[in-house]
């Protein structure tokens, strides 16, 4: 790419030297580029370096041409021609450029010769938004990376899917049903971190529920690379099946030390809260409902008289209009500070980064704090040997209130109390009070140390050894005062420790002979992962001031080691050969052998081969001279990856003390789970084909990928017939397939000479998943819906997660509209848990009678909907004019079905006027009011005919017009969200010089700005992975921040 031009004028005399001063800055933010080596074109000589502010002073021949080259930027050449003062603006090399270096499979390569599908995001793109979890900021930035920020709880993370669904496993049922998280593997500075850990237990509230990703300060991130296909992830084999995300932290790269300070002050505001009827309005409505729909006037009067909160309106206890939501939601002020010091060159460099993040949740008694200190350094005494060390320590501290990592059930139930009741006090509202006064303190500490040594034996043969230790400890301390639990105070104390010991030894050979380049390496890799958790639960402590450890009741107090203990070992051998001819034709072959301690003894090793091909057709002779084509390539790959699932107990069984036999102590197998000696890890096999093109000198670049991904050997528990003696067995019989298309495009509509720089990026991914195998060759399997009745159907050939619902076809406008059984003459009917039928009438929902027996029962359920988003993506626009820049990020999800449980429970609150729950104004809904109405929602008031919504009753056999499991509440959850808008200003460098600052930038950011959607609930994104919008979720906050970035 370097234009080679003659620098020496043959006719001239020996040119005389002149001294040139100047500054090299990034065009994007005006920051000086330090330690840039200035070369003289046509020679191998360097003229000098820039200092920490990017300033330089070099003495060169007056006709020389200076070359400014810096990693990550486009190289710029400037002819001196007697100029003595230069201002050089380097333009960042955009992400689609082929010269970019990506570290895929532990060895750096230019993108030009990688065959896999990978996308790199610069750390700068995510650093203007204060957010506890940096991964949430990747939303909408990478095609095929579907991020749903479905919890607003600070320090928790949303769900991450790379190329669709990877597991059909659902834990829990009803509102507490969750898809088993299958987030990709995160590799931070070359060390794999499993993001699913510490999070899988977040649901049960066992651990602190802090995502390990929340412990990384975004300011310290240099870049993030998302690997999507099998070839790119092949060398992360033993865990890479769900995709791999590489995070690289910053390194020192300036000869003179740099100190950089970043600060954000931000305000979090809660979303619009739901309106409720308050005080007298609520009482009047309830009394009207009883009078209108009660059996008769006498029983209605009696009913009201027996309900003191309706009848005794002057009683101080009931004469209230409490705004319950207002008690919990708040606007908060928050801050983050980050300071880093770095310096050095390629032979010796260092970096120290200190971060502080403090966010108070928009729900009272919740929040997240992070303290982090990260250091790295590199020593390279000579060209043959180098040594890298990296230490990072992070501490996360979180308050969960009375909820857990994901749900705020206490607040949800408290905030839905009747406004007639007084606010939380000793006499009322325990759940509410609990949310406010429960003392809860969750901490996660993380210590990570990495050392890496590299030695080049002979030219082109390098040995690298990496060793890391990652230690996490989590503690939870919760104290529940006695007034919250029938005068029983509770102390809960939890602590866990998790460690990962990791080692990799690699031998790398690379050689280029003429146009043939070969790069081959072999490595072995092993890790040991341990986890153990302890918990103590003391009840009935002496008083609220004395919080254990003694003085509790032995009978109800428990303590011990939790059964989620594990000790996992893995060892792998891997090799790769990459060959390219003139960077035109590239072939990559890799093979990996993985052994896992959780695999059954019959199948200890899994073999994971992969193949990748690439053809850079722009290098073909017929295209090299074309002016419009910057680059163009075709890629294809195939490969296999695994991820460990299950535990050693599933493969080898659990052996317990089983009493005495013949006078000897006996040890026997636990009959709960039959050991499966053929257990294998979950395997993905993926085909990928890709196409990259860049045209018109960077004005338009485009990348398209299509894939076919099989996720086989998913772990699933299967019940065994009792004659086997065992209850269950874990097998690998579930498979699914994802296939889809991904497109990213970047357009620069304005010419390079324009004063305004505008970059517009768009990406989108279509993903379809199909279930292909179930245990025992079954065609379908139904997962019961629990309290909400929302069952899930697994059926071959369909999307993997199908809802099973009653098909609501409308609302009967009159009783005459109800179908009549021609044989019996009876109207369409159902039963309320007894043999007495309930005949449908005007104002009732019309559920399709699928089997035509004129009885609504469970045989009339239909498979409907797909809770998994099918099209996801994002739009980014970046505009800069002089010192001002405006960055807008949007993300979208299209074609996704949400079950609006929040709305149905809102209507359900009208089902019993005597229950003191809150009533939401429903006048805006088109519900049935009188005969002849063409309504969307049934009559919510006819309470005497309704069955019992309570989860303890068998909701399946009841007449429930606002039941959760009906298509009436299955809504389209498509949305377009404006994630962030950032407006920034870069100060003039000359003015800053006087105060000793080399650069300064200020910016304002609005986060979670607005969501365009037709969904009737509050937020189509804040729903579970199964598409259920429950009212107990933690709402996403909107934040406004003011940021400052100073470099000394």
């Amino acid at each position, binding site marked *: 790419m370097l234009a080679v031009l003659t620098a020496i004028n043959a006719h001239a005399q020996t040119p005389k030297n002149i001294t040139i001063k100047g500054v090299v800055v990034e065009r994007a933010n005006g920051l000086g580029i330090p330690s840039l080596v200035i070369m003289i074109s046509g020679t191998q000589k360097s003229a000098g370096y820039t200092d920490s502010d990017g300033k330089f002073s070099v003495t060169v021949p007056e006709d020389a041409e200076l070359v400014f080259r810096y990693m990550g930027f486009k190289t710029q050449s400037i002819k001196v021609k007697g100029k003595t003062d230069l201002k050089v603006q380097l333009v960042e090399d955009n992400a689609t450029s082929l010269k970019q270096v990506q570290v895929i499979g532990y060895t750096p390569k230019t993108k030009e010769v990688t065959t896999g599908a990978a996308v790199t995001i610069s750390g700068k793109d995510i650093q203007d938004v204060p957010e506890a979890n940096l991964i949430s900021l990747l939303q909408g930035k990478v095609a095929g990376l579907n991020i749903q920020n479905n919890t607003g709880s600070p320090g928790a993370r949303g769900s991450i899917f790379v190329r669709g669904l990877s597991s059909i496993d659902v834990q829990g049922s009803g509102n507490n049903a969750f898809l088993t998280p299958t987030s990709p593997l995160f590799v931070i500075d070359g060390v794999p971190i499993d993001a699913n850990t510490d999070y899988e237990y977040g649901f049960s509230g066992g651990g602190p529920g802090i995502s390990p990703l929340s412990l990384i300060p975004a300011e310290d991130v240099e870049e993030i690379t998302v690997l999507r296909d099998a070839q790119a992830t092949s060398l992360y084999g033993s865990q890479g099946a769900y995709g791999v995300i590489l995070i690289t932290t910053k390194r020192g790269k300036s000869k003179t030390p740099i100190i950089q300070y970043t600060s954000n002050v931000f305000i979090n505001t809660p979303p619009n809260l739901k309106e409720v009827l308050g005080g007298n309005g609520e009482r009047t409505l309830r009394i009207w409902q009883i009078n209108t729909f009660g059996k008769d006037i006498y029983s209605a009067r009696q009913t009201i008289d027996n309900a003191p909160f309706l009848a005794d309106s002057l009683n101080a206890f009931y004469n209230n209009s409490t705004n319950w939501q207002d008690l919990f939601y708040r606007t908060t002020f928050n801050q983050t500070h980050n300071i880093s010091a770095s310096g050095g060159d390629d032979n010796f460099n260092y970096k120290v980064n200190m971060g502080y993040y403090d966010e108070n949740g928009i729900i009272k008694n919740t929040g997240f704090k992070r303290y982090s200190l990260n250091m790295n350094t590199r020593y390279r005494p000579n060209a043959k040997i180098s040594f890298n060390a990296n230490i990072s320590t992070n501490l996360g501290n979180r308050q969960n209130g009375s909820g857990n990592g994901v749900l705020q059930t206490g607040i949800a139930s408290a905030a839905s109390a009747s406004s007639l009741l007084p606010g939380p006090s000793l006499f009322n509202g325990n759940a509410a009070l609990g949310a406010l006064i429960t003392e809860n303190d969750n901490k996660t500490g993380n210590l990570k140390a990495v050392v890496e040594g590299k030695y080049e034996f002979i030219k082109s043969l390098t040995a690298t050894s990496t060793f890391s230790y990652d230690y996490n400890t989590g503690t939870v301390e919760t104290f529940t005062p006695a007034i919250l639990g029938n005068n029983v105070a509770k102390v809960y104390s939890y602590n866990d420790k998790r460690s990962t010991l990791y080692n990799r030894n690699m031998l790398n050979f690379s050689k280029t002979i003429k146009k043939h380049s070969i790069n081959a390496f072999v490595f072995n890799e092993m890790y040991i992962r341990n986890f153990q958790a302890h918990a103590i639960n003391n009840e009935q402590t002496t008083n609220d001031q004395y919080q254990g450890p003694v003085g509790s009741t032995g009978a109800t107090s428990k303590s011990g080691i939790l059964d989620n203990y594990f000790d996992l070992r893995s060892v792998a051998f891997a090799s790769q050969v990459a060959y390219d001819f003139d960077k035109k034709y590239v072939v990559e072959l890799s093979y990996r052998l993985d052994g896992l301690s959780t695999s059954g003894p019959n199948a200890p090793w899994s073999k994971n081969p992969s193949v990748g091909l690439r053809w850079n057709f722009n290098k073909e*002779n017929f295209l090299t001279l074309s002016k419009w084509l910057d680059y163009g390539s075709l890629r294809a790959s195939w490969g296999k990856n695994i991820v460990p699932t299950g535990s050693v107990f599933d493969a080898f069984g659990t052996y317990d003390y089983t009493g005495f036999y013949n006078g000897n102590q006996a040890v026997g197998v636990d009959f709960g789970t039959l050991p499966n000696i053929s257990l294998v890890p979950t395997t993905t096999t993926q085909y990928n*084909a890709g196409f990259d093109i860049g045209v018109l000198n960077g004005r338009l670049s485009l990348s398209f990928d299509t894939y076919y991904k099989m996720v086989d050997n998913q772990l699933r528990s299967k019940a065994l017939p009792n004659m086997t003696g065992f209850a269950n067995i874990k097998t690998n019989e579930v498979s699914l397939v994802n296939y889809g298309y991904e497109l990213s495009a970047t357009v620069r509509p304005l010419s390079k000479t324009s004063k305004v720089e505008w970059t517009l990026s768009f990406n989108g991914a279509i993903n379809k998943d199909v279930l292909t195998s179930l245990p025992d060759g079954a065609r*379908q399997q139904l997962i019961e819906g629990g309290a909400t009745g929302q069952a899930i159907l697994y*059926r071959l050939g369909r999307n993997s997660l199908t809802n099973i619902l009653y098909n609501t076809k409308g609302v009967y406008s009159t009783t005459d509209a109800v179908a009549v059984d021609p044989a019996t003459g009876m109207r369409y009917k159902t039963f309320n848990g007894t043999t007495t039928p309930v005949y449908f009438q005007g104002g009732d929902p019309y559920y399709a009678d699928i089997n*035509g027996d004129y009885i609504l029962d469970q045989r009339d359920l239909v498979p409907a909907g797909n809770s998994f988003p099918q099209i996801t993506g994002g739009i980014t626009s970046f505009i800069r004019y002089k010192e001002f820049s405006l960055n807008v990020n949007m993300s979208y999800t299209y074609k996704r079905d949400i079950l609006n449980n929040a709305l149905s429970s809102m209507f359900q609150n009208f089902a019993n006027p005597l229950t003191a729950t809150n009533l939401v104004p429903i006048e805006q809904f088109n519900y049935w009011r009188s005969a002849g109405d063409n309504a969307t929602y049934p009559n919510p008031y006819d309470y005497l005919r309704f069955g019992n919504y309570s989860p303890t009753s068998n909701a399946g056999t009841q007449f429930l017009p606002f039941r959760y499991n009906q298509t009436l509440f299955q809504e389209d959850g498509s949305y377009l969200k404006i994630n962030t808008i950032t407006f920034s200003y870069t100060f003039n460098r000359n003015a800053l010089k006087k105060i000793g600052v080399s650069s300064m930038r200020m910016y304002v950011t609005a986060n979670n700005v607005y969501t365009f959607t037709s969904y009737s609930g509050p937020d189509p994104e804040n729903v579970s992975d199964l598409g259920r919008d429950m009212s107990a979720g933690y709402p996403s906050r909107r934040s406004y921040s003011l940021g400052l970035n100073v470099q000394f």
Partner: protein
Amino acid sequence: MLKNKTNALLILILATLLFGACKKLLPTDKDAFNADAGFTQTIYQPVLGRTTVMSNNFNSQGSSLPLTFKIVGIRNSDGISAPELLKSFPISVWKKAYDGSEKTLAEIEAKRVVEEHPFFEIRQHSGELIMWSEATSNIVKSFPDSGYVFDVEVSNSGGRKYYNGLKLQPYKERAYEPNNINPLTGTSTGGNIFPTRIDNIVGEASSSFLNFGDVNISFHRKGDGNSLSFKFLDTLSNPIDPAKFKLTNWAKLIHGFNMKMTTTEVTYDVAYPIPCVFIPTPYTTADGRRASVNFLYDRMGFGGVRQVARLGFDFTIFQKGSWDIIIWFKTDNPKFTDD
């Protein structure tokens, strides 16, 4: 150059084919059909002359619903085909819901229409079997004949299974309930039908309370028509004036119209069957399965006590016609005069 272009094209075509091929490997979205699914009842014995829906007779064993049911090969027990069950006949079916509030006979009849149906049908997706009331023993074989044998084809998109040798053995008509008809022969066995309730009716001769056994009720079909009469007979079979049951709510006695009361009988125009639909109405028992009538009068009893006497009877009549219900005070006449 040309060769390169061809190469590119070739790769594109190959990639497309590869993906097309992969999609073909995916299973198609078909229903599950469990071969263990089956009928829980294989012998069906409806009573002719009344519409009978035989439900809850199939266990799908987890097969995908709805299943499609079809009767095939209905035949006599000796294997000869049974055209009487294959042919369609005009059948009166409900179109709108009867609820007991209808004001005229025409209003009730407007809720029914005549459609063509075979006498014996299976509901397409529920597997319920229906024997229509129009099937009578003069067309359809009934006990003591061993009836019919039929097969059912059950299918969904995932599979199909034939269930062979199901039996249909109809009983002869029993036009009314309660009765003393032998179900196997369809002939009366004699004996008495007693009232359902009898309170405070004092015998004229005995001066003691009459009991169930003192009253005998009989049904008598006079011919075609749409009427129902109640007649009261004394021990000598002389008519008793129905007006003597003076507290009776004649207007709401049964769901009938155009009441005509003479000294010998009281007659209504009614819709058959009685009750029309098995739902609770003011004219039926609490469960709605029988019409319920109560004849009341009061008199001053011994010692100047006012006694309200009641004779109550719950019944059904399936066959359309002009019916008499004759209430015969067999052993003693009711005493209507004060003591």
